[in-house]
C-alpha cells in the first residue's frame, strides 16, 4: 500500500515565492493536511500552515488544492490521480502571510460591523425546532472563508471595502431570521455589506464545506427582504401615510 505522492506547495511570503516539490509517503485515508504536516515533520519544519481540529470543524486549513478551494483536513489524497503533482496554494483573495497562511483579518473587521443579536423584550423564549432549523443552517458556518475566497466580487474585483461577502450575509441571515431577534439590519445589508453586488452565481454555495445553501437560503431571502423594505411601492406609500419604518 505504500506509495508516494508529489506535493507542489507554494513557499513564500507577501513579497513573492515559488512552488516547491516534495515527495511524501502516502498511507490509507491520508488527507492533504497530513501530507503538509509530513513535510513539516520530515523535510521543512518551518513550512507555514494553519490547522486545529483536523476534522472539518474549525475551518482553519482552507487552501486551494489543484485550483479548488478546500479544507485540507477533509481532502483525501486518494481522490487525486497518482503520478501527478498535487498543487497546494494559499487562498487567492487574501494577502499571503507565509506559505499557506493567509491574512484573513479583513473578515474580522467586517464581522465587527454587524450589530449583535438583541433579544426582543416582548417575546416568550419558546420557539419550535422548525424555526430553529432555519437559522441553525446558517449557524453551522465554521468561518473557513472559502466562500469569501471564491466570491468573484472579492476575488476578481477586490471590492472588499464595499461588499461584506457571503460569509457575513450568512451571518446576518442567521440573525435576521432568528425567532427572538429584535434588531433591524436591512440598512446595513444595503450599505455597509453591499448585498446588491452579489449577482447570485452560487460559487460560494458550491465550495461550502458545511453545505450551507448560502445563495438560496440566505442571500436571496435577504435580497427579497430589502426589496420589500426599500422598493415596494405599496410599502413606501404605507410608510409615508403611517410614518412607520
Amino acid at each position, binding site marked *: 500500500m505504500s506509495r508516494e505522492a508529489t506535493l507542489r506547495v507554494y513557499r513564500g*511570503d507577501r513579497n513573492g515565492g515559488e512552488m516547491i516539490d516534495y515527495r511524501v509517503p502516502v*498511507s*490509507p*485515508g*491520508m*488527507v492533504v493536511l*497530513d501530507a503538509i504536516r509530513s513535510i*513539516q*515533520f*520530515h523535510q*521543512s*519544519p*518551518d*513550512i*507555514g*500552515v*494553519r*490547522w*486545529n*481540529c*483536523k*476534522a*472539518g*470543524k*474549525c*475551518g*482553519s486549513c482552507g487552501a486551494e488544492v489543484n485550483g479548488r478551494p478546500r479544507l485540507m483536513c*477533509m481532502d*483525501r489524497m486518494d481522490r487525486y490521480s497518482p503520478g501527478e503533482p498535487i498543487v497546494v496554494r494559499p487562498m487567492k483573495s487574501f494577502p499571503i*502571510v*507565509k*506559505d499557506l*497562511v493567509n491574512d*484573513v483579518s479583513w473578515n*474580522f473587521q467586517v*464581522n*465587527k460591523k*454587524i*450589530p*449583535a*443579536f438583541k*433579544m426582543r423584550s416582548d417575546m416568550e*423564549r*419558546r*420557539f*419550535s*425546532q422548525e*424555526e*430553529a432549523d432555519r*437559522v*441553525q443552517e446558517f*449557524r*453551522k458556518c*465554521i*468561518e473557513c472563508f472559502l466562500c469569501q475566497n471564491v466570491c468573484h466580487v472579492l476575488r476578481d474585483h477586490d471590492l472588499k471595502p464595499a461588499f461584506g461577502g457571503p460569509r457575513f450575509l450568512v451571518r446576518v441571515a442567521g*440573525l435576521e431570521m*432568528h425567532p*427572538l*431577534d429584535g434588531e433591524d439590519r436591512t440598512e446595513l445589508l444595503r450599505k455597509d455589506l453591499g448585498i446588491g453586488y452579489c449577482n447570485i452565481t452560487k460559487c460560494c454555495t458550491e465550495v461550502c464545506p458545511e453545505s450551507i445553501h448560502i445563495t438560496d437560503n440566505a442571500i436571496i431571502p435577504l435580497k427579497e427582504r430589502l426589496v420589500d423594505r426599500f422598493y415596494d411601492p405599496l410599502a413606501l406609500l404605507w410608510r409615508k401615510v403611517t410614518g412607520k419604518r
Partner: protein
Amino acid sequence: MSRYETQEHDVVIVGAGGAGLRAAIEASSRGARTALVCKSLLGKAHTVMAEGGVAAALANVDTRDSWKVHFRDTMKGGKFLNQWRMAQLHAQQAIERVQELEEWGAVFDRTKDGRVLQRNFGGHTYPRLAHVGDRTGLEMIRTLQDRGVHQGIDVFMECTIRWILKDQERVAGCLGFWRESGRFVVFRSKAVVLATGGIGRCFEITSNSWEYKGDGHALALWAGADLVDMEFVQFHPTGMVWPPSVRGTLITEGVRGEGGVLLNNQGKRFMFENIPDLFKGEYAETEEEAKQWVVDVATGRRPEARRPPELLTRDVVARAIRREVREGRGSPHGGVFLDISSQRRPDEIKKKLPSMYHQFRELADVDITKSPMEVGPTCHYTMGGVRVDPETQQATVPGLFAAGEAAGGMHGANRLGGNSLSDLLVFGKLAGEFAAALALEMTGLPELNGNEVDSAARELLDPFDRPEGENPYEVHEDMRKMMQKFVGIVRTGEELEAALEELKIIRARAARVKVGGNIQFNPGWHLALDLKNMIDVSEAIARAALTRQESRGAHTREDYPESDPEKWAKVNVIVHKKGDEMGLRLEPLPEMPSDLKQLLAPKS
C-alpha cells in the same frame, strides 16, 4: 525594556476558547480594560470541537432534575475527589449561564413545546445536555465571540504567551510573541487569567489540536503556582482508530446518548459485565431494558427503564474497551465497535449526529447509518490544573487566575461529559469577575522587572542559535509515544519510574533542538519552545501518578488496583516548582458541609 512592544490593560486573558471568551466578556462588562490573547484565530479554539452538549439542570426534559442531582452526579463521576465548592457552584450556576447564552443568541435544539432540548450523557442521571446536534461547541464559541466583539475587548490573535511576569510575589503581566512576525510583546496588567485549555499533545493518541500543549499549566508552574490532581488524565472511550490519519479524532458521547451500543468482535455488548459496584442498580442489566430506554428516548417519553451501561462514566468505559482489545476481542484495527445503525433510523442519526455522519463518510468511508464505527480510547481532557480558590478562581499567586480546563479541582478524578462546556461558562465568568474586581481596586500597574523580561525573551531565541541539533518534531513524537506507553490509561509504579527517567533524556534532547528558517510564522520554532512546557507538564503528571498509590477514576494503577478509602480518598496531590525542582505534597480535601454530604448519601 523599551525594545519591546508594550500593551497595557487591567486584565489579560490568555486563551480565547469558551472560558477565555466568557472571562473577557465579564471583565470588560465590569469596566476593566481587557485583552484577550490567543494562539489561533478567534473562534478556532478547542471549544469549537466540543460536540455533545453543555450540562445544566434546566429540567426541561425531565422535571426530576435539579442542581442537587447534577452536583451528586458530578461528585460521583469524580469519585468524590472534586473540590466540593466548585462542583456546587458549577451545578447551581450552569443553569443561568446556559439561559444567558440563549439571551445572547444561541440557538439550541428544541423540545416539542419549544424549550431548550436536553440529551442523555454518561454519568448524568437525567437528560441534561443542552445541545445543537453534535456541534454544540461551535454554537457556544460563536455566540460568545459575537457578544464579545461588541464589548470593547482588545483581541490579539496568533500570539503565544511564554512567561508570566511578576512584581515581587504578584503578577505584573506576561511576555509573548506574535506568531506571524516572531516579534516579542509585553502585556502589562494587574491580573492575568489563564484559560489555555489542556495538555493532550503530551500523548500519542489524542483528540486534542496542536494548541493543547499545557501552556497555562506550565506558565502557572513557572510562576510559582500550585497544580492539583495532575494524575487524572481523561481518555475518552470513543476516538476514531482507522484510518491512521484520523486516529484519536473524537466521536461524541452523544452517539451513546442517542442509543449507540458498544460491541466486541463476537457481537457481544460487553458493558453489561462492566458495571462497577458504585453504580450497581442504576443501569440497565438486560438488553431488553436498555432497548426500552432507547425507545423511550427516541419517542421523547420519560424513560422508566434504567439507562444502558454504555452510558457509564468515561473512565469505566475506556478501561472496559481497553480490556476487550487486550484480551483479543477487539475490532480489526485495535478498537471495538460502536453501533448506532441498529438502534436508530437513518434520518434520526443524520439529524442528531450530522457531523459524525459526515466525518465517517468523508474520512473513513463508513456510513454510520448502515455500519458500526471502530472506536478506541483517546486522550481527551485533563482533570488536573491550576489550583484555584473556588469562589474567585485565583491561583496561589496573587493576580493569577485560571478557568476552564486549565484550572483543576472541579472534576476530581474523572469529568462527566458535558460538564466541560458548563465549567467554561461558570468559571470563566467568575474568573473574569474577580480578576476585574482585583484590578479595579488597584491604582497603578505593577512594576516590571526589566531583567526578568530580557532573560525570558532571550531564552525564546535559543533554538535559532544552535548550528546543529535534532528536529523538534522527532523529540516531540518520541515524548508522546513514551507518555502513551508508560503514563496512559493503565499505569504501574515501574512504568512511571521509567517515564521519569525517559523524560530526563527527552529534556536533554529538547534543550538541543535546532530550528531552520526565519522567525516569521515558523511552526518548527514554536514547537521547539512548546517542548519545554510539555516536558514539565508530563513530569507533573508522571510524578503525581507515581505518588497516588491507588486506582481512582481516570487514574488506574495495575499495582494498586483498588480505591483506598482511608488514605487516598481524603487527599489531593499538589505539584509545584521552585527553581528547577518539582515538588509534591498531599493536602487534605476541604471539609464538605453536612447538607451537601447528605446529597451524596446512597439512595435508599
